[in-house]
């Protein structure tokens, strides 16, 4: 064994020497047997899993192709643009978003149970997952790093307006903030307010006004895309 447990015992508890040259803290955790460099760690796991017939390398390519090229916020933007253009679709979206997005061919992993929440002059909605990084993948793709950051997870619930200011968003007086902490398998899509001056636009042009952040609630539609 390349890294005997004994070396790590010293560093296993609070108050133990923190700077000891040990890659990981917990001697009970098998992951500490892997190399400490993350790239080498991943390489080792990949080698093991592929050699043992537990992972198909072509499946890895397929997964990456899905989330690097096919699934992303352009899909959520299509839903929002449709809701802005078609009042009957908007009503169906707010009543049962999972069924409504399926009309547009959108469904899947981390979007099995979707709820759409609409911004109004009275209420601005904003989504977070304080416990991990739950996010509506089929509508928005992979979450941005900030969404997964400790800073967003810790602060969005207590000081949403300060966080919004960091995104350049300031809300008018009288508009309350409702922060949705995604603690279950329900995934939230924010339907931003339709920007003024967009009356004559068709769905394709409208969807260009819908940024990823506006569907998480840290941006406004039409602001920056």
């Amino acid at each position, binding site marked *: *064994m390349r890294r005997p447990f004994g070396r790590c015992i010293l560093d296993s508890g609070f108050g133990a020497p923190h700077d000891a040259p040990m890659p*990981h803290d*917990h001697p009970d955790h098998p992951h500490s047997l892997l190399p400490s460099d993350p790239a080498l760690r991943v390489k080792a796991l990949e080698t093991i899993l592929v050699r*043992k017939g*537990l992972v198909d390398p072509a499946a890895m390519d397929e997964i990456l192709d899905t989330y690097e090229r096919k699934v992303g916020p352009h899909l959520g933007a299509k839903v929002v643009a449709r809701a802005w253009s078609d009042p009957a679709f908007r009503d169906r979206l707010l009543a049962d978003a999972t069924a409504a997005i399926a009309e547009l061919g959108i469904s899947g992993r981390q979007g099995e149970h979707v709820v759409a929440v609409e911004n109004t002059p009275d209420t601005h909605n904003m989504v977070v997952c304080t*416990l991990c990084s739950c996010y509506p993948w089929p509508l928005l793709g992979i979450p941005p790093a*900030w969404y997964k950051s400790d800073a967003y997870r810790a602060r969005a619930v207590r000081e949403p307006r300060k966080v919004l200011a960091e995104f350049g968003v300031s809300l008018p007086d009288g508009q309350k*903030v409702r922060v949705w902490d995604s603690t279950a398998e329900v995934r939230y899509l924010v339907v931003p307010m339709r920007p003024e001056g967009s009356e004559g636009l068709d769905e394709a042009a409208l969807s260009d006004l819908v940024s990823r952040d506006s569907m998480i609630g*840290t941006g406004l539609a039409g602001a920056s895309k």
Partner: protein
Amino acid sequence: MTRVHDMGGRYGDPAVIPEPQGIVPIGPEWHRKALALTLAAGGLGAWSIDTSRHARESLSPKDYARFSYYEKWMAALADLLVEKGLVTKDELAAGTAEPAGAHPKLFRAEAVGPALKRGSPYTRPGAEPAFAPGDRVRTRLPARNADIPGGHTRLPAYAAGQTGTVILSHGAHVLPDANAHGLGERPEPLYTVAFTAADLWGEAEGEGDEVTLDLWQSYLVPA
């Protein structure tokens, strides 16, 4: 007691740094591999999403705090693979393994598209909800797994012992507190409950501000 992942409302974190809009670049090659390996190995069906979240939360607080996002994924994946008997500690230490044939549940490339498109719904047949939108409810105090000391739960500490109003009723969903520990799915009615920011934090940042959480019935009592 809480775990380090339960950070909602914590003080002291820095500013949030926005990123460009559009599809998010996954990052350096090892991030791409970490994401793909985690989903591909998850496709074996050897563990649930609840088990996998619990594995990430069970990293030591120091590892959790200093590991980047995909390092947490990798660590949890390695731990789960050993726990489920799919990989041995010796193989992890060696960084390689003897070649073997395809596992009977290997997640093959041709299955990826349909599986990602299908997802795994978490609704189940179950009891009728005891609460309805408009009902006032109080959450469990302290936030904890009622069956397993230190076990997985989805009630954050900041919302424990608080009184709020049911605003949505989602039907019965798999209970993570049980499913994460192999105790069965034990579906329970799931609700979205709204709390005033003033109640949660002592004072609201803005008048009328609220926080909602998705909470299972056993987390709640009538208020």
